[in-house]
């Protein structure tokens, strides 16, 4: 209804109203001239993305070139697919790809139901003040830097003096384990800390979608004899499915980048085999190791794969569910 406006006592859509005020066909130039102020407002924005997004895209050409510190991006010799071959011939590369995908699967698929579950649970708290207070607390970790979160983890999981180890010791166990260094604990810790940090924030959108569901739907379901769980299954979940799908498509594009900050900060010699991902490898070889061409080539493959996945998933969901990004 919001597209309809009352104008001179007649209901009109916005588009009609706009036509009403632009009755004469203007030439493109006069039209643009009339909108001068908006182009001025947009100019820094376009310049920004041209410089900081499109120029680096052009810089991807480096994936096929020999970078020299004096020749710059464009000056070097062509090397063809050398860096790509180098990447695929290195058995370690497949380990990094595997690590990345495992972490991504944890964060995209395994994690997915948890914020929805929290939103459902919060929706069941009927005291508005209490619910508001609880919600505020659950959002808080989202605003805390990964540096701080990993700092907290290091402290709590520290050998001997950490809380967990002291608890183990008080029950007569061995409290000298440094959990952050354990290879087998890396993935569980990644998952738990990610859940801890993001679940509250991610539940906001689901919660808003749940609240937007018309109450009469529940009443109808209740009259039909549906219990609480069936109401959730047949009313709530279908009601928020569009939201779930949109968020899911948006996140799938990043399946080959599993979150740089968290993984990089949690890396240590103890878990190197499971914690090196494509993102951290790019920073290690490129920014820290100076192998610009090689790191660019890996980034190029990662970017193209992400783009293709997003486009495909978007096509499928728009056909099957009628929901899409664009």
């Amino acid at each position, binding site marked *: 209804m919001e597209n309809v*406006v*009352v104008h001179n006592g007649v209901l009109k859509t916005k588009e009609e*109203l706009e036509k009403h005020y632009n009755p004469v066909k203007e030439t*493109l130039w006069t*039209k643009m001239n009339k*909108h001068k*102020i*908006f*182009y001025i*407002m*947009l100019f820094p924005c376009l310049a*920004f*993305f041209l410089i900081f*997004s*499109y120029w*680096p*895209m052009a*810089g*991807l050409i*480096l994936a096929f070139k020999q970078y020299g510190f004096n020749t*710059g*991006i464009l000056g070097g010799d062509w090397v063809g697919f050398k860096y790509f071959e180098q990447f695929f011939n290195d058995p370690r590369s497949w380990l990094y790809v595997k690590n990345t995908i495992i972490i991504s699967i944890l964060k995209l698929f395994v994690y997915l139901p948890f914020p929805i579950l*929290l939103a459902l*649970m919060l929706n*069941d*708290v009927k005291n508005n003040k*209490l619910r508001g207070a609880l919600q*505020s607390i659950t959002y808080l970790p989202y*605003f*805390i*830097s990964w*540096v*701080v979160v990993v*700092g*907290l983890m*290091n*402290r709590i999981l520290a050998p*001997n*003096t*950490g809380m967990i180890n*002291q608890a183990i010791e008080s029950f007569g166990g061995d409290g000298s384990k440094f959990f952050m260094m354990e290879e087998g604990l890396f993935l569980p810790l990644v998952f738990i800390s990610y859940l801890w940090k993001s679940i*509250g924030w991610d539940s906001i959108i689901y919660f*808003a979608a749940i609240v*937007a*569901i018309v*109450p009469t739907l*529940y009443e109808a379901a209740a009259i039909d004899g549906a219990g*609480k769980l069936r109401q959730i299954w047949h009313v709530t979940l279908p009601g928020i499915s569009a939201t779930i799908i949109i968020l899911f498509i948006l996140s799938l*594009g990043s399946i080959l980048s599993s979150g740089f900050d968290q993984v990089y900060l949690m890396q*240590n010699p103890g878990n190197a085999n499971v914690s090196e991902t494509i993102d951290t490898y*790019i920073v290690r070889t490129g*920014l820290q190791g100076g192998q*610009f061409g090689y*790191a660019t080539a890996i*980034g*190029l493959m990662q970017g*193209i794969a*992400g783009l293709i996945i*997003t486009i495909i998933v978007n096509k499928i969901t728009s056909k099957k569910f009628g*929901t899409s990004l664009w």
Partner: protein
Amino acid sequence: MSNSMVGPKALRFLNILLIVLFCLAIILPFLHVLAISFNSGVDAQKGGIGFWPREWSFENYTEVFKQDNLLNGLFISIFRTVVGTVIGVALMSMAAYAMTIKTLPGRKQITFFVFFTMLFSGGTVPYYLVLTELNLTNTIWVFIIPSLYSVTNILLLRTSFNQLPFSVIEAARIDGCSEFKIFRSIVIPMSKPVLATISLFTAVGHWNDWYYGSFFVRDASLKPLATLLQEMLTRQAALSDILLRNSGSMAYSQLDKITVTSESLQMATIIVVMIPMVLIYPFIQKYFVKGITVGSIKE
């Protein structure tokens, strides 16, 4: 809030209990670190501190503010957060508003030009080389200029501006109000929740960012607080590793003489990094829930 998911009382209580337990899991780690940060560092090394200091000491904090690099880092962080947020939010709202003008020639192409950068990017190394070529690396402006715009924030602003009552804007237009005045005196005042949200996101992004400070500047005097904390974490890991290997050696006994340990200093730094966040959070959080849900639910 009037849907009729009424369940048995016990189930409802269990539900609240579970949420409360989760909230405790969020708060308690912070209280623990707070307690250690107010405890004498040497005493804290014995362990056993829960959520209240055992041997009160403010030395960790005086040490934080005595260390030149930490104090300097605090100033860098404040500078980039304030300047970056003010300029960024102003520029982003202007661009987002212009994108809502339906009669603007080229509007679709411009929106796509901006939106596409969300789907594909040049990646880390080309980005770094562009910053180098612009002579931004190793200057304070590398924290400000490359972070002025964010696509997600622009989209959020655009959606919110789109939902403003069109009739009010049109009425002002008919009254002969200039377009910029409409933007400044009608659109901006009516969009407080979303502007507060975007400001919060931008400010938090600046305050928490350690990446630019780690990889795009070399001078120690340019490192923001978050980067210094990250370096402390890394050094701490390396240090404790060495100490574990030759415990009882000279280094360890020397460490015993000072009451502030690198560990307790780190805890105090964590608290200093978190304080501004925790202070502004209660005031701004009522806005951001409204701000982010406005644009995200598809009707």
